[in-house]
């Protein structure tokens, strides 16, 4: 187990940065007193169930709701036609596209929302939803983006006036001419075509809402599974025509998000409209099947990467062409200037001058997405591609993959590093992290064992990934979601007795914000973390923020918390000077108190200062010790690390097992090492899941074949490997406390390490690639085909 290299500056009673403080939120979860959306019951509450399309692509001829309406207990059946009367049949997505709320013209994916039944009981609502009858005219279902972009493909988005093909977006980054020149000079070009398969975040709590619209006052209180309650409030104001001051979104406890709870789903909008019209609260909670077939999927990127290399092992340039399957509606949440998110971080941890990245997205008859599943806007796909390419390049050059990486790493003294696609990496020391991981795993011994194993008929592989992430968007000038700049906020109120409340625009889904954000205040003001209550997820009672995804809570809201704490500390200095009858310049700060320089006995605690702020403020100083800060990050942060996986592959069956998994992470300064480790362990598991089993597939007619947990496999405790964690600490130079964010590093970085390990076990046979998820039959086929079988 790791120990932090940075000793805490504060005592455990204060509990500032670096303390593995036990979690505040656990108190309610351990007793079953969590408060998730489905746990909330309101008086006179009705229940909603949705009738969904069984077909992937069809024109709607007619919708008959009479049988559903006749069921006892049914209050209303809502169709798109009805919503159209309120201008609500369509809604904007967070990527600037439009999405049908309830289908009126066509259905465009299996599981699409067509009608909603509102009833007095959930069972009745579900019974009646089945009785909605829809007559269809079949259209060609398009289930892959390659077919979608062929000239004779039927137009999926015929609802959009200017849409003449199924092309959803086209975007490029880097310098084409410079890159072509680099490739012209190359000794070798190493290429890899691979598909990052469609996955689903599948948090154990599905999505849901209770919409409570008071028809007398116009007040809409929406209890919603929302990772971004403020942004959602604004979208609701724009979509539903409700006055924004009358919309209150409460995002209570969330049972995991992983990006699945970033988009706005049709069910939220229908329930709100139904509550508005009926005048009673309406609850809608998805079933698991609804969650898997209709809400934000992830990935589904077809990528071709080429590395230009020299014979002595230097990378000269990178060329990437990517085709994304976006489903029927472009409904992820991309920063508006970046249509493929931050995919252009694909140059990775390596230093070369030339890169050119072209991306296209295509509409298909599949569920809309794709969300950044535990990922900062498509960084996962990018990291996978470069780390797979680098390993294959090393093989082609006859080099050790670690030495090839070492040859090409951005060096510690090159930061801030300007990447060829326009990023400015803040800090890093890739070589040290890699060497540490190699030492932990015993790299040389495993390499030696590989040779021996082969002689005995065993297959052993070792693979690594030295990833660099980019997280914590904005800067607001470059990064926005439908125009909303990607800042975040913190409001701190220190009460007269020295206790404090911190209110945030972000929203935890299990990351432990109530514990960690109090530690930032404790560090900066010396108020014990236990005296700081953290509030989030209630738009009436927290300052505006863009929410929790893309590992942005610590980089952005964490920074806001540090800055507002420091601002209040400066005000506290004025009050302290008044109390000590000294000049401000003569005061020095030590955790929790100001004292007169050279006279430590003359001191006043932050608690006494807080009391004075309300009872005895200095003349010309406003009473109170409260403030709010909106933090616009000057740059993003760049966590990194090296993951190494050792696998044993069964040559007979293709089954593979993780023998060792070593993860060295560098997320800068840690707020709470225990929680950081928990985040990494969880992320490594999701990386393992994608590399080994998670896959949402479709048949040729567009039937989703991953519609429940018996078909869509996620790892249990039995399959999940044991992880060995290590760390290096390279603070972010521009973040107020030097932190970088860690919630997604392991999901981003680890899939390539698992695949590299399996490919490494087979590469002597000529195997250069195994596609994810690496099921036993895929590995077996890879071996057979390489053997000429």
């Amino acid at each position, binding site marked *: 187990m790791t120990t932090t290299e940075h000793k805490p500056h504060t005592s455990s009673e204060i509990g500032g940065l670096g303390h593995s403080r*036990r979690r505040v939120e656990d108190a309610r979860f351990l007793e079953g007193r969590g408060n998730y959306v489905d746990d909330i019951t309101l008086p006179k509450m009705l229940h909603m169930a949705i009738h969904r399309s069984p077909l992937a692509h069809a024109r709607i001829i007619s919708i008959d709701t009479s049988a559903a309406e006749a069921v006892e207990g049914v209050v209303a059946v809502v169709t798109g036609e009805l919503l159209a009367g309120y201008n609500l049949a369509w809604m904007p997505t967070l990527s600037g596209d439009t999405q049908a709320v309830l289908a009126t013209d066509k259905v465009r994916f299996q599981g699409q929302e067509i009608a909603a039944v509102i009833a007095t009981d959930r069972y009745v609502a579900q019974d009646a939803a089945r009785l909605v009858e829809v007559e269809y005219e079949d259209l060609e279902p398009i289930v892959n983006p390659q077919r979608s972009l062929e000239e004779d493909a039927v137009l999926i988005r015929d609802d959009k006036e200017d849409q003449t093909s199924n092309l959803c977006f086209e975007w490029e980054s880097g310098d084409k001419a410079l890159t072509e020149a680099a490739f012209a000079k190359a000794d070798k070009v190493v290429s890899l075509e691979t598909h990052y398969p469609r996955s689903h975040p599948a948090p154990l709590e599905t999505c849901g809402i209770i919409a409570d619209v008071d028809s007398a006052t116009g007040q809409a209180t929406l209890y919603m599974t929302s990772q971004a309650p403020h942004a959602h409030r604004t979208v609701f104001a724009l979509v539903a025509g409700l006055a924004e001051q009358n919309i209150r979104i409460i995002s209570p406890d969330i049972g995991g998000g992983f990006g699945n709870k970033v988009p706005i789903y049709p069910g939220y909008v229908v329930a709100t409209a139904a509550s508005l019209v009926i005048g009673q609260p309406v609850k809608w909670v998805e079933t698991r099947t609804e969650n898997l077939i209709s809400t934000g999927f992830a990935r589904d990127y077809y990528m071709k990467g080429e590395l230009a290399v020299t014979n002595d092992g230097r990378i000269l340039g990178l060329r990437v062409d990517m085709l994304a399957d976006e489903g029927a509606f472009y409904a992820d949440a991309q920063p508006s200037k970046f249509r493929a998110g931050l995919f252009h971080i694909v140059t990775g941890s390596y230093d070369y001058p030339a890169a050119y990245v072209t991306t296209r997205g295509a509409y298909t008859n599949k569920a809309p997405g794709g969300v950044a599943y535990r990922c900062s806007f498509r960084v996962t796909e990018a990291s996978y591609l470069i780390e797979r390419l680098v390993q294959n390049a090393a093989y082609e050059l006859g080099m050790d993959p670690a030495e090839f990486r070492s040859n090409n790493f951005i060096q510690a003294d090159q930061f801030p590093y300007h990447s060829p696609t326009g990023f400015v990496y803040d800090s890093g020391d890739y070589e040290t992290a890699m060497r540490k991981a190699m030492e932990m795993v015993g790299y040389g011994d495993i390499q030696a064992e590989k040779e021996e194993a082969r002689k005995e008929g065993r297959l052993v592989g070792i693979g690594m990934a030295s990833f660099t992430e980019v997280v914590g968007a904005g800067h607001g000038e470059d990064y926005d979601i439908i125009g909303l700049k990607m800042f975040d906020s913190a409001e701190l109120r220190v009460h007269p007795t020295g206790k404090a409340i911190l209110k945030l625009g972000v929203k935890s889904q299990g990351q432990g914000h109530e514990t960690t954000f109090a530690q930032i205040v404790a560090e900066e003001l010396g108020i014990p973390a236990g005296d700081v209550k953290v509030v989030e997820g209630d738009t009436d009672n927290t300052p505006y923020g863009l929410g929790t995804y893309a590992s942005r809570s610590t980089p952005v809201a964490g920074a806001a918390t540090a800055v507002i704490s420091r601002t209040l500390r400066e005000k506290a200095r004025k009050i302290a000077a008044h109390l000590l009858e000294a000049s401000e310049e003569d005061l020095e700060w030590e955790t929790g108190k100001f004292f007169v320089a050279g006279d430590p006995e003359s001191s006043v605690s932050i608690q006494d200062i807080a009391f004075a702020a309300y009872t005895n403020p200095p003349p010309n100083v406003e009473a109170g010790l409260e403030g709010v800060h909106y933090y616009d990050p000057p740059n993003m942060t760049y966590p990194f690390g090296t993951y190494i996986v050792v696998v044993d592959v069964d040559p007979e069956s293709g089954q593979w097992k993780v023998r060792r998994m070593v993860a060295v992470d560098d997320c800068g300064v840690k707020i709470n090492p225990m929680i950081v480790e928990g985040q990494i362990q969880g992320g490594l598991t999701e990386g393992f899941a994608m590399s080994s089993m998670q896959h949402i597939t479709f048949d040729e007619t567009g039937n989703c074949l991953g519609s429940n947990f018996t078909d869509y496999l996620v790892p249990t405790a039995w399959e999940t490997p044991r992880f060995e964690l290590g760390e290096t600490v390279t603070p972010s130079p521009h973040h107020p406390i030097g932190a970088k964010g860690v919630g997604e590093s392991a999901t981003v970085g680890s899939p390539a390490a698992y695949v590299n390990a399996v490919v490494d076990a087979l590469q002597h046979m000529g195997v250069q690639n195994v596609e994810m998820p690496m099921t036993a039959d895929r590995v077996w086929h890879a071996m057979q085909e390489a053997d000429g079988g």
Partner: protein
Amino acid sequence: MNITVTVNGMEHTADVEPRLLLVDFIRTNLGLTGTHIGCDTTSCGVCTVLIDGTPVKTCTMFAVQANGRSVTTVEGLKQNGELSAMQQAFREHHGLQCGFCTPAMMLVGTALIEENPDPTEDDIRWAISGNLCRCTGYMNIVKSIEAAAETTREGAIS
């Protein structure tokens, strides 16, 4: 149909629809919302409770099947007003993140160490393999159950 079910030591009698799922009886009729719903197909395990001491997934069991039986939910884990060894261990070893799978994990762990006071890591992983967790990667859940087993053994000796 009339049923009588003892839940966390308290007897409840109710007239329920034959198709009412046990999980809905527990959550809606009794208001014990610590038992969750995650999949409806007996796959994820967040609806697990103990029935006569044995872990059972209640999303595919009818309330009427629990007639005459004794059910323990997470709300019944505290002992004498104190967190149980299992609950304390989950806090101490960071065995939970979003908290959604946690009640079921603690109940399964409790049943395991009742039957097997000194489980190996594999015993624990096998016991919880019917319960999914998407946050933790299971390592700290395993550690929590190991620690609770140890505390319970020590408590039994002293």
